[in-house]
């Protein structure tokens, strides 16, 4: 338990004062998070360039590595506009509400076990070891919709309002699937604590990506929708809505929205790693030291982050009605059925590997039979759908 880890540790190990330790950890993890988010802005452009056979940013620093820094400086020096018609309070509040919850969720991610350097013990490599960290993450994910809807509404611009509305409807629709997928994992590993979930997977060697394939796929899809990323980026779908909910934003406030989005991506990647890939575990190796766990965790999370970029430059955007149909009529029922099956498997004490077999046996024929694009959608392609 966390308290014990700090206070009842081995007497030979030395500890830093608590406050110093906390601030140190907070600084470290914030630095990591914000650094990753900043690098993601660069990676986004670099990866897109590679996919499109271009070079990408390469002027600022070696290989363009200092580009994010230059962007940040540019944001700070930009003039800020608060439109006359906007609701001033909400307009200023929205970016903060968008950025802060996204950053806070990182606090409970267990990057690695207890850190020991020589005689010095630094506790586990996570800010807080809450035993209900899943609920904490769920609560903060739920908060993220406020920034978007408030930003869209308070701007008093038609584009912003539509973008905000679309985004909020989409986020709440997919949040259900996301939480239900997580619920299956919770049922499987029997804990609301992210550390325990990761540890359970590591000890049995059966990562949830294998024993909960349906939940894994649902989580990854919902993860894209929750962060408003392609192919679900209706909040800012440029050809229709200019910039969506942040059309009216500029300068640092605009930067905060972007910061929130990239932080949310990083958090989601970390969550997917913890829930489905066993955190910092490697297959067939039971106990790992923290300096192995941390790179493994980062590698797994990075692969998810790369997936975000890869998908963005590969898939076209959905239509809004397709998005709603997928969310409510495919993913939500599927998630509920998956919860059912998981509950039954746990109750009957069957081997968990039964679930992937079952999923393949049921879902593949089902998808082959019913998964063809319906003619109705084709006829609508050119008319477009109202949003």
């Amino acid at each position, binding site marked *: 338990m966390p308290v014990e880890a700090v206070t009842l540790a081995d007497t030979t190990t030395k500890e830093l004062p608590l406050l110093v330790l906390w601030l140190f950890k907070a600084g470290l993890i914030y630095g990591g998070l914000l650094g990753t988010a900043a690098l993601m802005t660069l990676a986004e452009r670099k990866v897109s360039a590679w996919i499109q056979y271009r070079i990408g940013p390469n002027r600022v620093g070696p290989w363009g590595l200092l580009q994010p820094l230059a962007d940040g400086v540019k944001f700070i020096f930009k003039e800020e506009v608060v439109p006359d018609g906007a609701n001033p309070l909400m307009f200023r509040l929205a970016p903060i509400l968008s950025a*802060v919850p996204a950053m806070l969720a990182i606090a409970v991610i267990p990057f690695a076990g207890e850190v020991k350097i020589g005689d010095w013990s630094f506790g586990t490599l996570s800010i807080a070891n809450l035993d209900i960290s899943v609920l904490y993450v769920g609560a903060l994910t739920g908060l993220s919709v406020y920034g978007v809807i408030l930003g869209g509404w308070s701007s008093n611009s038609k*584009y912003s309002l539509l973008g905000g509305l679309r985004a909020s409807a989409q986020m709440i629709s997919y949040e259900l699937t996301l939480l239900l997928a997580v619920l299956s994992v*919770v049922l499987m590993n029997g804990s609301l604590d992210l550390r325990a979930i990761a540890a359970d997977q590591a000890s049995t060697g059966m990562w949830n990506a294998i024993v909960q394939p349906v939940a894994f796929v649902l989580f990854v899809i919902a993860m894209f929708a929750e962060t408003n990323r392609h192919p679900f980026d209706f909040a800012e779908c440029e050809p229709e809505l200019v910039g969506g909910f942040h059309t009216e934003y500029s300068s640092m406030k605009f930067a905060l929205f972007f910061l929130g989005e990239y932080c949310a991506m990083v958090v989601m990647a970390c969550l997917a790693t913890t829930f489905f890939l066993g955190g910092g575990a490697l297959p067939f190796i039971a106990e790992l030291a923290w300096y192995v766990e941390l790179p493994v965790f980062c590698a797994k999370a990075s692969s998810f982050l790369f997936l975000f970029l890869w998908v963005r430059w590969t898939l076209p955007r959905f239509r809004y009605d397709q998005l709603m*149909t997928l969310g409510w009529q495919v993913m939500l029922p599927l998630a509920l059925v998956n919860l059912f099956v998981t509950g039954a498997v746990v109750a009957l004490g069957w081997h968990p590997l039964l679930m992937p077999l079952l999923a393949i046996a049921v879902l593949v024929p089902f998808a082959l039979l019913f998964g063809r694009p319906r003619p109705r959608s084709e006829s609508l392609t050119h008319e477009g759908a109202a949003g």
Partner: protein
Amino acid sequence: MYFDYLNVLIFCAVGLGFVFVNLIIASFLRPKRKVTEGLETYECGEEPIGDAWIQFDIRYYTVALVYVIFAVEIAFLFPWAIVLGESFRGTGAAVGTGIGAFALIEGIVFIVILFLGLAYVWAKGDLDWVLSFSGPAYQPPQERARFLPSVHELQELAEARNDEGDGEGDEAEENEEAA
């Protein structure tokens, strides 16, 4: 455990601090111009007409309502999942209460009833974003009434008169001509 919540609080404070420091630094450094045109609402160069605070599509409310129902369901299911797992695995507080099978059935009943709600909304078409109406098909607008009859109408009138005068005999000829 409570120390960890304090950790979160400190973390939250640091995060808020970061955000506000950025905003404040930017507010000192950025240029401030007093040009009123820039403060108009952006609408691709058009003059915006009216507020954007309008009545929007009611389906957003429907989605939000269904969401609330399911979100509450999920909130109830989290403790259920824990108790169920503990009871069947034989660890934790729920061992020996014999609540496992009962909890499983109760949970299934709960989910099925809510699933029926989803099925109801689904069947009533509230989940379909593109609505289809079973109204009359689109008819192109009728030709405008004219003061003077058009050439086409005059021809028809003449033919009708011919028909009346000549009886049945000419019809076959006319059909041939039309063909």
